């Protein structure tokens, strides 16, 4: 605990900290228990994935990008495949797109339930943490039925998918979804009714709509601040226009809103999976592949944490000339600073967790940025302290 001027102490949170699953260093400056400033320093987890991707073929990169993040692995391969297919002008059959949607939504449900458990653990409610992870087991069974794996699905490939959904599988998945839906509704009721959860999460880590716009937040973090944006609506990359779903928006802008947005989104995802399995079109699973020509394009998808972008530049070889990815955590991480300022030290882990940081995806991007443009340091210096709060 180092001394600074004005009786401001700095308390380190991380890089190894019980509340954070992954490595990030937060230097939190406190006056008493009140946070007056925060320094965010990611970059402990550089793996050089983009460089690796420029040495492997398009097909083998699918397996590589699946390993960028263990939780949203379906989102990464979907975004990468969409980018490659747009770049190489491959027309993917509709059945494959539906199967991708099922997989992506199951992935989202599992990710949100996992995050909810962690969020409850951080405020000390281990019972709800265990319950939400028990519900998550059911959705993992669904994923296992769909893909044969629980973490890295290996189903998406360039031009389509590698596994089909048979009618028996569909029936089993629908059965399991009923259980998940019941469980998720129970969790929503528990959060709505429990006074202590409300006391810990309401008006904590507030990120106003203006600030969320200024920091260009994406995904559930932005939607919890009242910004209605969803890549599934804006750019229905895998036939999302066929499904009827709601973009969940909350306007209280605090940690409670982030909890509610994610739980409600899990219910919407269940709706999408049901529709996709019910209306699964007939047809092939794979498209005819084309020969690479020099071109460039991006693929976007709504990962569980927000908008995920892949940029592909192709040449005449079967190896991409440049791959660049921008993960949602990279965008959302700076906005933890205005959330932290003005709140209590006891709420720091909970606020950091509330954006669902996935630092293993993020850190690769930071390192690339430092090498090319040094954007990281500029971004933090530009951050203006939050107004209208007394501290």
């Amino acid at each position, binding site marked *: *605990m180092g001394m600074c001027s004005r009786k401001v102490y700095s*308390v*380190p949170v991380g890089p190894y*900290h*019980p*509340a954070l699953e992954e490595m990030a260093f937060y230097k939190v400056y406190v006056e008493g*228990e009140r946070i007056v400033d925060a320094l965010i320093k990611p970059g402990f987890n550089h793996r050089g994935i983009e460089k690796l991707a420029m040495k492997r073929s398009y097909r083998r990169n699918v397996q590589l990008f699946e390993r960028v993040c263990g939780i949203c692995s379906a989102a990464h391969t979907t975004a990468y495949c969409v980018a490659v297919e747009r770049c190489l002008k491959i027309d993917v059959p509709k059945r494959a797109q539906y199967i991708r949607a099922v997989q992506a939504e199951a992935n989202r449900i599992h990710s949100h339930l996992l995050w909810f458990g962690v969020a*409850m*653990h*951080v*405020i*000390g*409610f*281990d*019972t*709800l943490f*265990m*319950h939400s992870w*028990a519900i998550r087991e059911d959705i993992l069974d669904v994923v296992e039925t769909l893909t044969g794996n629980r973490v890295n699905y290996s189903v998406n490939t360039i031009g389509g998918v590698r596994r089909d959904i048979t009618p028996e599988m569909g029936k089993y998945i629908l059965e399991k979804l009923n259980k998940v839906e019941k469980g998720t509704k129970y969790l929503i009721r528990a959060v709505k009714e*429990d006074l*202590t*959860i409300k*006391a*810990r999460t309401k008006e904590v880590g507030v990120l106003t709509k203006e600030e969320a716009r200024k920091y260009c937040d994406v995904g559930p973090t932005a939607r919890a601040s009242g910004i209605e944006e969803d890549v599934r609506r804006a750019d229905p990359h895998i036939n999302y226009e066929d499904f009827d779903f709601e973009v969940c928006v909350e306007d209280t802008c605090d940690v409670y809103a982030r909890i509610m947005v994610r739980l409600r989104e899990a219910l919407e995802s269940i709706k999408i999976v049901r529709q996709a399995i019910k209306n699964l079109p007939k047809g092939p699973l794979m498209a005819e592949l084309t020969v690479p020509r020099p071109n460039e394009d991006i693929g976007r998808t709504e990962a569980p944490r927000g908008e995920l972008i892949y940029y592909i530049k192709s040449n005449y070889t079967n190896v991409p000339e440049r791959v660049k990815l921008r993960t949602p955590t990279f965008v959302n991480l700076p906005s933890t600073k205005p959330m932290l300022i003005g709140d*209590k*030290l*006891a*709420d*720091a*882990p*909970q606020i950091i967790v509330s954006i669902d940081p996935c630092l293993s995806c993020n850190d690769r991007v930071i390192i690339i940025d430092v090498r090319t443009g040094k954007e990281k340091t500029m971004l933090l210096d530009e951050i203006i302290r939050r107004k209208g709060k007394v501290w």
Partner: protein
Amino acid sequence: MVAQLLLIIGLLVYPGFVFSILYGGILIWIYRKIRARMQGRRGPPWYQTYADIMKLLSKETIIPRNAWRVGFIGAPIISIVSLATAMLLIPIWSSKPLLGFVGDTIVLLYLLTVPTFAIILAGISSNSPYGIVGASREASLLVWYELPFWFSIATILILTGTLSVEKIVSIQATLGPNIIRAPLAFIAFIIAAQAKLAKRPFDIPHAETEIVAGPYTEYSGVLRGFFEINEALKWLTISSVTATFFLGWPITGNPVFNALLFMVKVALFAIIFAVIDIINPRFRIEQAHWPLWKVALIIALIDLVRILAGIGV
């Protein structure tokens, strides 16, 4: 001579160290088992606490270089000794405790307060930021829970008109348990005792996701094992005090039956504390004051005033 020998046996074996550690370990196991079953897990085997303690006692102890050694080593020992001594003042096999005298209630309650100060000492002398933050949280929690704790006991003392533990129990044996005669004081006591045990929603001093393990962060090996023993003793003494002051009924002529009944009562209160722990998330430090002062203190005072005015006694 025989009396002194009995006292030494009492301090070391029954109901002192050996019994306290063994039964406290069972209480911790009950807590962990209920917790696991309510969370859809299986839970540890019954000997888990003893296994943990044995393992910790066999490990290397590391004392941080910038820690204050006397306080760092002394804190867990002070805590254990005061809790084991407190067990001597609690009647187990009859209404008479092993070491009873006039005014022993005050001594008993003081002995229960010592562990809190020992934990504050541990946190400060370990000289780590987490320890210091944990100690300061423990200190602010102390201010909030001691008042409802003492007021609910004061209600009992006025109700029974005595300062001796023996009298309190024998009066309950004839007139019915205090849990019925002073129900609001009982609820206040349970809330305050939950904070004394540092269980959810009051486990703020060692909130693992905020300040690692708080005052215990720097402890390892034998000293950490001592704190594990301390935890077992805390469960036992606080549940025993609840059983003594609020459910000192019935007392039969058979000492073995009385002792068994006492253990059942203690387990019952331990289960109440465990269930409160399981169904609650953790409060922030400044939020902890409303259940303790705005709920527990007020209802304890209501019962106190009611009994002073002689309504429904």
